[in-house]
C-alpha cells in the first residue's frame, strides 16, 4: 500500500512538473527573444525602429517600416479575399448543407489545414505567380508576378480552413429555437441567417477571423516564396514586398557577421510573437465565452 502511495505521489509530481514546463514555454520564448533584442533597443529608439524606412544593416541602420507595411499589406489582402469566401462557405455548411455533406467536407477542410506551407508556396510559384504576372501585364503593369497580390492570394487560401472550421462550429452553437422562431414569423431562410443566426454568432465569427489573421500574420515560407522580398514600401498590388517573417528567414545566415543584425532580427521575431499571441488570446477568450454559454 505504501509503495502504491509513493508511486501515486511521484506520478502526480511529475505531471505537475510537465504542466509547469508547458506553461512556462511561452514566457521562456518571449524572454529569450527579449534578451537578444535588447542591444538594438538600447542603441535605437523604438519609434525609429518602427517608422524609419532605411534598412542598411552594414551601416547599423535598422528601420522596420517597409517590413511592417509589407506584413500588414499582405495580411490585409489575404483577409479581404478570404473573409467573404469563408463566411459564405461556413453559412452554407452550417445552415443549408445536409448533415452528410457537412461530415464529408470536414475532413477535406482538415486536409487543407494539414498541407505544409512549403507545398502551398510551391503551388503558388507554379500557379499563382504566372497568373498574377499575366493579369498585371494585361492591366499594363510590368510585374514579375512575385508580388504583394501573389502573397495575399496564397495566404488567403492558407487561412481558409481555420476560418471555415471555427465559424461553422460557432454558427452551430446558435439554438435551433432561435431559427424556428424566425422562420415561424415568415422569414426566409436567408433572412433568418442574416438577422438571427449571424447576428447572434457575430462574436464567434469575429474570433474566427482574428484566428485567421494571426495565422496569416506569422506565416513565413509560403509568403517568402512568392512575395518578391524587396525591402521597399509597396505602392501597388503588383509591387514586391518584404514581410517580417520573410526577413527573419532570409537573413539568418549573415546575421551573425554584422553587429546588431541578429538583435534586430530577434526583435522582429519578438514583435511577431507578441502580435500573434495577443490576437490569439483575444480569440481564445471570445470562443471560451461562447462555449460556456452553449
Amino acid at each position, binding site marked *: 500500500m505504501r509503495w502504491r502511495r509513493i508511486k*501515486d505521489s511521484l506520478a502526480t509530481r511529475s505531471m505537475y512538473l510537465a504542466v509547469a514546463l508547458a506553461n512556462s514555454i511561452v514566457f521562456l520564448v518571449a524572454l529569450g527573444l527579449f534578451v537578444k533584442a535588447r542591444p538594438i533597443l538600447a542603441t535605437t529608439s523604438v519609434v525609429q525602429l518602427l517608422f524609419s524606412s532605411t534598412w542598411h544593416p552594414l551601416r547599423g541602420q535598422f528601420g522596420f517600416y517597409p517590413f511592417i507595411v509589407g506584413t500588414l499589406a499582405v495580411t490585409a489582402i489575404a483577409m479581404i479575399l478570404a473573409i467573404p469566401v469563408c463566411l459564405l462557405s461556413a453559412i*452554407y455548411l452550417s445552415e443549408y448543407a445536409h448533415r452528410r455533406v457537412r461530415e464529408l467536407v470536414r475532413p477535406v477542410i482538415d486536409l487543407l489545414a*494539414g*498541407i*505544409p506551407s512549403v507545398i502551398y508556396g510551391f503551388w503558388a*510559384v507554379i500557379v499563382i505567380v504566372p497568373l498574377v504576372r499575366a493579369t498585371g501585364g494585361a492591366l499594363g503593369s510590368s510585374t514579375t508576378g512575385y508580388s504583394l497580390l501573389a502573397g495575399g492570394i496564397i495566404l488567403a487560401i492558407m487561412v481558409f480552413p481555420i476560418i471555415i472550421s471555427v465559424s461553422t462550429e460557432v454558427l452551430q452553437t446558435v439554438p435551433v429555437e432561435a431559427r424556428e422562431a424566425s422562420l415561424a414569423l415568415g422569414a426566409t431562410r436567408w433572412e433568418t441567417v442574416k438577422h438571427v443566426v449571424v447576428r447572434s454568432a457575430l462574436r464567434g465569427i469575429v474570433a474566427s477571423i482574428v484566428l485567421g489573421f494571426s495565422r496569416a500574420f*506569422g506565416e513565413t515560407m509560403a509568403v517568402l516564396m512568392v512575395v518578391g522580398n524587396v525591402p521597399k514600401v509597396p505602392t501597388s498590388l503588383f509591387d514586391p514586398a518584404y514581410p517580417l517573417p520573410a526577413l527573419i528567414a532570409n537573413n539568418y545566415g549573415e546575421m551573425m557577421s554584422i553587429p546588431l543584425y541578429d538583435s534586430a532580427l530577434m526583435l522582429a521575431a519578438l514583435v511577431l*510573437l507578441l502580435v500573434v499571441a495577443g490576437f490569439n488570446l483575444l480569440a*481564445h477568450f471570445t470562443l471560451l465565452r461562447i462555449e460556456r454559454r452553449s
Partner: protein
Amino acid sequence: MGARRLEEAVFKALMLASLGLVLAVLAAIVVVVMARGASALSLSMLTQTPKGGYYLGKEGGIANAIVGSLYLAFGASVLSILLSLPTAFALQKEYAGRRLASITRLSLDALWGTPSIVYGAFGFIIMRYLGIGTSLLGGILALSLLMLPIMTRAMEEAIRMVPLELKEISYSMGATRIETTLAVVLRQALPGIITAVVLAFGRGIGDAASILFTAGYTDHIPRSLLDPTASLPLAVFFQLGTPFPEVQRRAYASALILLVIVLLASLAARLLSRRFSKHIVR
C-alpha cells in the same frame, strides 16, 4: 415576395460558389503537386544522396532529405510525447483544479498560434546558449515546441471523453489516481492519443520555418544528434530556388514525396483511431 426569394437564391448561389472554390483550390493543389511530381520522380531520387554537382543538375537523389525529415519528425514526436502526455493527464479533474487547467489551456492556445519562424529563432538562441551548431538535435528541439500544443490539446480532448463512471468504478475498487489513469484512462483514450501523435507528426514533418536555422542542410544522412541534417520541406524550398530547370524538377519530386507523407499521416490518424476504438467502452 419576389425580391426576397431572389435574394435567397442569389446568396445560396454565392455560398455554393464559395464552397466550390475552396474545394477546387484544394483539388488543384493536390493535382498539380501530384502531376508535376510524378513526372519528375525516379527511383534514384528516393534512394541516393546528392552526388557531386547535384545542384547543377548532375546525378543523385534526396534520400538525405527523406531520412532527415523522418529523423526530425520522429525525434520531435518522442520529445513532445514526454511532455504532452503527462500534461494532458494532469488536466483531468482529479489533478489540476479549474484555474490551473484553464491557465494551461490558455498558454497552449498561445503556443498553438505562435508562428513557426519564432520557434526557429528561439531554438537558435537556445542552441547558441548551449554551444551547439545547426544539428538534428536543434531541429528536434524547435520542432517539438511546434508539436507540443497540437499534441497536448488533441490528447486532452481524447482524455476528456473517457466516461466518468469508468473512472469511478476504478476508484471505488481502491485504485490510486495513477493506477486509474494508466489502467483505465490511458487504455480508453489510446485511439485518441495515437491520433494526436500522428496529427502532430504530420504537422511537424512539413514545417520548414522552425528548422531553417536549427537543423541546417547537408548532403549527408546524419550519423549523430549533433550532425546537421537535410529535410524535405527545405529540399523543396532550396531546389525550387535554383535557376536550373533540372534541379527545379527535383523540387517537384520532393514536394510530391512530402505531400504523400503528410496525406498518409492524416489517413493513418483516421484509420488508427477507428481500429483502436474496437475495444473501447462507451
